[in-house]
């Protein structure tokens, strides 16, 4: 790792996260000065400002940072493990499993019983889809193409099930479910924040430490086997860890698309494909992008809050169109 890269990833990027965090804290429906925001965090501001900052914006921004980091890292790992730059929770069917679980919670009316029911059902839905993809891929010894095909199949099946549920449900249930599924940070239960943060951070630390292993897996499989590595076991472990990180974020905030695709692509262009540095870099970049998108979602049609998933999808769409139209360097 060169010094430049090290400084970029471990100094400049965390600093950017801090700047975006503070920026997101002061921007919103109520204008709050930077000094008041900092005072509120440390308990020196008036009660209204303290409530807005401490109880509304602070947990929301932390959740956005954590989710952004988690989604970016899991996208990065899926792409390396499957040796496919388009692999992400969506193509692997994991997001559709989540949508299925959440939709079931809303449509059945159980979502209104307790706020924990939605994350519970979403998590369960995701784990079912992960399990199905896992079992199908196992038949082909975790071959990359088999895993992606299994993901696409699972994704279609669960999406059809969601559509079927929506078609048979009352319109108001469907609308609430739809908004939730687009992904947002306004409705999650604050009590889940420590759990989600703990799961995502543990996952990111493990996956960052495994950067060299992920590098070997991203090489030709036959070649990596000759280094004495149990590639199938490693793929299983990485797939399940990355799925778990995704599940933790998506089950609390809904399906937020494109973060897991856009961030690793951009970071690869900036710092290369070495996962030892790419994974922490993606984590920081995700923790910058998602709070920014969330702030946009709060102020764009203020006072109406739009789902952050819409913003990430629009930005992601433009990003990939630009990539597609960019002339190739000779």
């Amino acid at each position, binding site marked *: 790792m060169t010094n430049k890269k090290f400084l970029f990833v471990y100094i400049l990027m965390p600093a950017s996260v801090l700047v975006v965090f503070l920026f997101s804290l002061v921007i919103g429906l109520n204008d709050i000065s930077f000094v008041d925001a900092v005072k509120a965090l440390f308990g020196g501001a008036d009660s209204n400002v303290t409530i807005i900052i401490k109880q509304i914006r602070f947990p929301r921004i932390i959740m956005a940072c954590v989710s952004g980091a988690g989604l970016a890292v899991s996208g990065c790992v899926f792409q390396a493990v499957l*040796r496919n730059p388009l692999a992400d929770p969506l193509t692997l069917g994991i997001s559709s499993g989540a949508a299925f679980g959440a939709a079931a919670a809303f449509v059945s009316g159980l979502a209104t019983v307790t706020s924990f029911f939605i994350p519970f059902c979403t998590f369960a839905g995701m784990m079912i889809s992960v399990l199905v993809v896992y079992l199908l891929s196992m038949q082909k010894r975790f071959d990359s193409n088999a895993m992606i095909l299994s993901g696409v199949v699972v994704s279609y099946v669960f999406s059809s099930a969601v559509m079927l549920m929506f078609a048979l449900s009352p319109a108001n249930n469907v609308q609430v479910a739809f908004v939730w599924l687009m992904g947002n940070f306004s409705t999650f239960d604050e009590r889940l924040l420590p759990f989600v943060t703990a799961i995502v951070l543990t996952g990111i630390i493990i996956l960052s*430490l*495994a950067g*060299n*292993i992920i*590098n*070997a897996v*991203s*090489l*030709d499989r*036959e*070649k990596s*086997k*000759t*280094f*004495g*590595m*149990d590639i199938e076991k490693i793929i299983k472990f990485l797939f399940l860890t990355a799925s778990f990180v995704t599940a933790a974020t998506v089950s609390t905030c809904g399906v937020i698309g494109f973060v897991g695709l856009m961030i690793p692509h951009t970071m*690869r262009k900036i710092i*290369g*494909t*070495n996962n030892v540095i790419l994974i922490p870099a993606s984590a920081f970049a995700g923790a910058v992008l998602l709070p920014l998108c969330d702030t946009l979602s709060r102020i764009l049609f203020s006072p109406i809050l739009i789902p952050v998933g819409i913003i990430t999808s629009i930005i992601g769409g433009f990003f990939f169109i630009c990539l597609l139209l960019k002339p190739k360097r000779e």
Partner: protein
Amino acid sequence: MIKIESISVGYLNREVLKNVSCNIDKKDFFGIIGKNGTGKSTLLKVLCSLIKPHSGNVFINDENVNSFSKKKFARTISFMPQRIDTSLSFTVFEFVMFGRYPYMNIFKIPSRADYIAVEKVIDFLQIATFVKRNINELSDGEKQIALIAQVLVQETDIVVFDEPTSHLDIGSQNDILEILRDLNEKCNKTVILTLHDLNAAGEFCNKLVLMEDGSICKQGTAEEVLNYKDIERVYNTTVIVKTNPISNRPYIIPVSKTRKR
């Protein structure tokens, strides 16, 4: 040192290797030749435990390879595939370091000994000029040398190469084969390789096997294997076999069918 005993391998309904047996001694420069699709690469992959045979066994130093742990096996035999995926932007140094994985801890974090081993190989192959470059910026010849470096840092007694000189010009081909000869003669490694170029096989290998239709049809020294009768039959062409006046090794000249008439 290596004993390949009645190996049979098949993909779907096609049998690729049929009851193949041969012995490879320590310090052999062992070449495998034959037409395309005769099972040369499959034999190498069986030897490197990348393909499980339907029947038969491979023994290294009288020990069945099935009883080797993955790590022990990786410290005994290293493999260089025909081609590498160079879409990833690793530097040559990072790429070579992969060869040290069998010696690293669970998270594969390189130790001082790993850095020293890589530096040693860089010196041996004299590639210090391009170790900082990106692997996908190298010429085909340089890529092959980077792959050889990766195999070398694995520090195994047996090194296996699948067509190491394919797609290379004659100068680069010779450079690569000279490096392999150095490995064999100076570093005492047993070199096993598949080759398409029969002249290179004749010039460099001390033992050859000629494969035909999934079986070994001839094995022995280069002089014994490279005779016009077997070569013409296996490759279905007309050749003249001569002796290189400088190295005293056999070489082969193909004869055009039109001119023959």
